């Protein structure tokens, strides 16, 4: 339950932050805060952060690409060394977001264990 909540909260709050904050990587702060708030072990926190952003970025990229009929993604996937595969581009996008969020969430988890270890 904690895991699912953390995952969904990371995704949701990151999306909102993306609308209001002018910094593309602000979701890293979000993932860290969520992990601080909903404490899990480091591995689980990483996975929740990773999945939160992976799912968010995958859905956003997939959704925008579908509305665009793949006009842009195919070009960008040829410009980057991805062989013109729009799926590779969507997945690369999701993985990059996931990795940053995962390690940020992991940091949040360690931060809480280090700061509040006596309370639990």
């Amino acid at each position: 339950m904690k895991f699912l909540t953390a995952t969904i909260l990371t995704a949701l709050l990151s999306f909102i932050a993306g609308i209001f904050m002018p910094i593309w990587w602000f979701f890293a702060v979000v993932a860290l805060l969520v992990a601080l708030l909903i404490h899990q072990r480091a591995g689980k926190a990483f996975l929740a952060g990773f999945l939160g952003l992976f799912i968010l970025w995958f859905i956003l990229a997939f959704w925008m690409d579908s509305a665009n009929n793949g006009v842009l993604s195919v070009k960008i996937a040829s410009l980057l060394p991805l062989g013109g595969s729009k799926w590779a581009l969507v997945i690369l996008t999701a993985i990059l977001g996931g990795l940053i969020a995962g390690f940020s969430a992991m940091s949040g988890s360690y931060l809480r264990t280090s700061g509040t270890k006596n309370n639990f």
Partner: protein
Amino acid sequence: MRIGPFLVSVIIAGGLIYALNRPWGDKVPMPLGKFLSPQFGIWQNAEESDNDFTADLKMEGLHGKAEVFLDERLVPHVFAEDDGDAAFVQGYLHAKFRLWQMEFQTHAAAGRVSEIIGERALAYDRTKRRLGMIFAAENMLKEVEANPNTKKILDSYTAGVNTYINSLKESQLPVEYKLLNYKPELWTNLKSALFIKQMTETLAGSVDDLPLTNARSFFSDDELKVLFPQVPDSLSPIVPKGTVFAPPSIVPIKPADADSVYLEKKDTVQLVDLYQPDPNNGSNNWAVAGSKTKSGAPILCNDPHLELSLPSIWYEMQMTTSTMNAYGVSFPGIPGIVIGFNDSVAFGFTNSQRDVRDYYEIKFKDGSRQQYWFDSAWKDATMRPELIKIKGKPDYIDTIAYTVFGPVMYDKSFPADTISFKEKNLAVRWSAHDPSNELLMWYYLDRAKNFDDYHNAIQYFTCPSQNMVFASKRGEIAIWQQGRMPALWDRQGVYVMPGYDNNYRWQGYIPMEENPHVVNPASGFVSSANQRPVDSAYPYFIPGKYDLYRGYTINKRLDSLQQITPEDMMKLHNENYNSFAQMMRPLLLKYVDESKLSADEKKMADLVRNWNLINDFDEKGATAYQTWFDSFEVLIWSDELIKAKNLYPSERTLVEALLRDSAFKYVDDITTPQKESLYDIVTIALKKATPELLKEDNDNVLAWGKHKNTTIYHLLRTSAMPFARPSLHIGGGQHIVNATQHSHGPSWKMIVHLTDKIEAYGVYPGGQSGNPGSKYYDSFVDQWAAGKYYTIWYMHAGDKLDKKAKWKITFEKI
């Protein structure tokens, strides 16, 4: 204790963000994380295929209200009461759909590319600074801002561009900014002037003065007159042959010592201009009078040939105000309709190809370049420092000496790698430096009602001089070669001239009424295709880089056509007949020695023999002919002209020389002991061409269209190939009316039938949106390649509820 793991994971997360927030070198030049972020990066540029462009905008800077109706091709039809508001909206739309190209092209014009891509553009930037591009734009802007009409229009245009730029969030930046990782700066009036100067350099910047000066060391002036003749035999000029010209009002005086210190001076500059404009830049235009059309109304046609690019150089639109209702194509970067029509008239342009750029050799007193020898005294140069910013490096300051002629473009510091050039200083005299207000011509032309208005409008155009074609509903047709062109003495400016003597300067300018023109001729048509405008009877010396064969074909066709319809004009635009080959092929076939040919070589000769002289996509004979000719041309010239930096005479000069005399003295290969005849050279040429042709045949690319492989590149050229449209199915080529070459050709094709209700057709190889993520980015390309047109919707105020008005943007002041 979890501090250790915490630090490790924070460092990994931070490291990832850091690494993905910066470029990774050539393969991945963008900050990948930011670039791929769905809420900030390129996914934001993936325009929805059913995007709704309708909007109600409120902004400062407008005087009243404006409405923009976008049709299904995304062509905006602007309705504004006030001329300034229309220009404001045009600036806004140009920026909304084409911001990156506007800025990139004006950065290129100003020599500011190093700012974006780094030090590798420094030599390019210095060339622009040393040619005086910014100096020229500043001189122009003073004139533009001194005229209340053009000042109002340009100020409003700039305000419109900047209103859009200021409204942009980083996530909405065009893809190219995200790719190259920079941001747009605000627009200025100077940038619009720079845009015009960039076009000016493209069209009036190409000269052979330096290679010809090199050639003068090895050939006499008389020999060079034969190799680079002024009037070709098969010329079909703009002003019909046999026209009687009035005596010239200016008779420039040839300096007394010209023969010894200029024409026969043996001295080489060992330099070729860097970054020469493409010699293929040119165009076709013509107008036929009602006497030759089926409807009885004139038809005007134009297709400017430029480097084909995405985003396109053109943006199609209509602008309606209380003073005008003009439709056509505009240049993103300047206000107004550049090629188009209104309720009463239509107008178009081709380049005059006239030489308005000359070089003078300067002698400085010392290394400081502060003083130069002129009219028997040391004269002060004006030193102009040019600051060049370089991405990732300290700024570079290039200080340029300005003389009475203009900037000293080449000196000991530039170009840096030409050792043999250290002792030479060359100043450039270029018409584009002179004060002028080209915008004023378009201001009046967009609003012209008749010939008198056109005649009045074109006087304001200085450079690049153009063949300005005109037709009106009243039935007038005209063409005028207009611009400010120097009155030169015979051979003036062909070579680098002495810079110490006032007598070598330009002595005056040809008055407009003496510029070549044709008004309402009995033939019922006027036309131009970059050919020499007049025959040898014209009383001025007018060197230039002229074309020949397109004009020859067009005049022949127009002469024979009667009862002309717009469909006939489309056919002529798309005409692939090769008049050059028509004249040259008989020579190749006559002089090839069949007895010396192998089976393969015979096969190639047969391909050429059986070819229909039409450069259609599938014609293998066209490729065989062209490759054979190219090989022949190299054999004829390379032996003699290698010393002169391989500046070859034009194809027409070669054909005409051989038609006059098959024993033309350059036929012999001077590198061999024996004497070759035309039979030998033609045969060797085919033998040399055959392996390449066989290989192309094997690779299945011998068909003409596959051989030339027409490609529309993105402005970033080969570094953005996925944004290009390669391998288009289209014929045509050099010297052909359909002038479509590998990456060069008709950049806008327009046909305007001046009936009561104007009937117009147009197409360009691009699309209205500059965004590679929009389906409107290249939506016209297939139609263009197929030789088809769109029927233009010339909207009137009463059509606002018409279904063709698909989206509506309203602009209101706050």
